[in-house]
């Protein structure tokens, strides 16, 4: 105690100060620390919620990005398939058109040949008819010129025989 007094410390004042400090500490704890801690706790919770939300958003974003990538990949594959299909169809169509054109050309050639053949046959027949006409006309002239009176008599007799038959 004497030592304390030697250093100028009054025990009663020290006790009073301690009591004051405790009271102050209680008061501070009650009216200042608690609200501050509460506010801090709320902010901490808010931050945690925000972090969680941001993580959730990030996760969703990643999922969306992944889905988008998948959709894009799928669309790419489908578009490639469609392009490939269209190419194949175009090739088939082109082949068909080429085949049809070739068939049409062959048909036209065939018809033209047939037409030529018919025309040729007609001309041959016409020529034969003309030859027959010329030959018979010539024969008529020869017959007319060379028929004697006896021949004519004979032909009349023959005609009468044919009539009687």
């Amino acid at each position, binding site marked *: 105690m004497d030592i304390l007094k030697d250093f100028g410390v009054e025990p009663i004042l020290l006790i009073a100060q301690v009591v004051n400090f405790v009271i102050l500490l209680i008061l501070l704890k009650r009216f200042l620390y608690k609200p501050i801690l509460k506010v801090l706790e709320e902010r901490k919770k808010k931050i945690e919620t925000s972090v969680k939300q941001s993580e959730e958003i990030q996760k969703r974003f990643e999922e969306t990005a992944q889905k988008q990538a998948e959709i894009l990949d799928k669309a790419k594959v489908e578009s490639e398939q469609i392009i490939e299909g269209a190419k194949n169809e175009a090739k088939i169509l082109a082949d068909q058109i080429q085949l049809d054109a070739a068939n049409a050309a062959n048909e036209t050639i065939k018809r033209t040949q047939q037409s030529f053949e018919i025309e040729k046959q007609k001309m041959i*027949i016409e020529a*034969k*008819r003309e030859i*027959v*006409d010329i*030959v*018979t006309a010539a*024969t*008529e002239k020869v*017959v*007319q010129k060379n*028929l004697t*009176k006896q*021949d*004519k008599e004979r*032909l*009349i007799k*023959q*005609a*009468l025989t*044919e*009539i*009687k038959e």
Partner: protein
Amino acid sequence: MKKIKTENQKAAKKFFRDSFTNNKLDVRKVRKHIQAAKNIYKSSTLGIIKSYLALIKRHLQNNTVVIETAEKLDQKKVATIQTHFAKKLDKKLEARIVQNPNIFAGLRITLGDNQWDYSAKGKLNQIREFLHGKYSS
């Protein structure tokens, strides 16, 4: 118009029926009917006479055997032909000779719408038709 035509034909047929004497066409009656047509049916004279003459022409064609020859034909042969066709058709026929050098030789006989061709020209035509038929296919 149709009625007038029918009436003309009726009158022409009546004249035609009355134009025969002993089943033979009587020229006097024909002349008389033509005169009658002129006097009675003044407005339709032409139509009646046309129909009447057409009937007479048809009758003559069906009852006259037309014999075409290149040379003159003696009466015996004409009679043979006339008798043959009269017997064949069972009716009396008149004969008319037509000289036609274009048939060259032989005979061509026409009776109504029928024709029998025994001429050289006919034979040549048959040959030509045969050859045409042969070379047309």
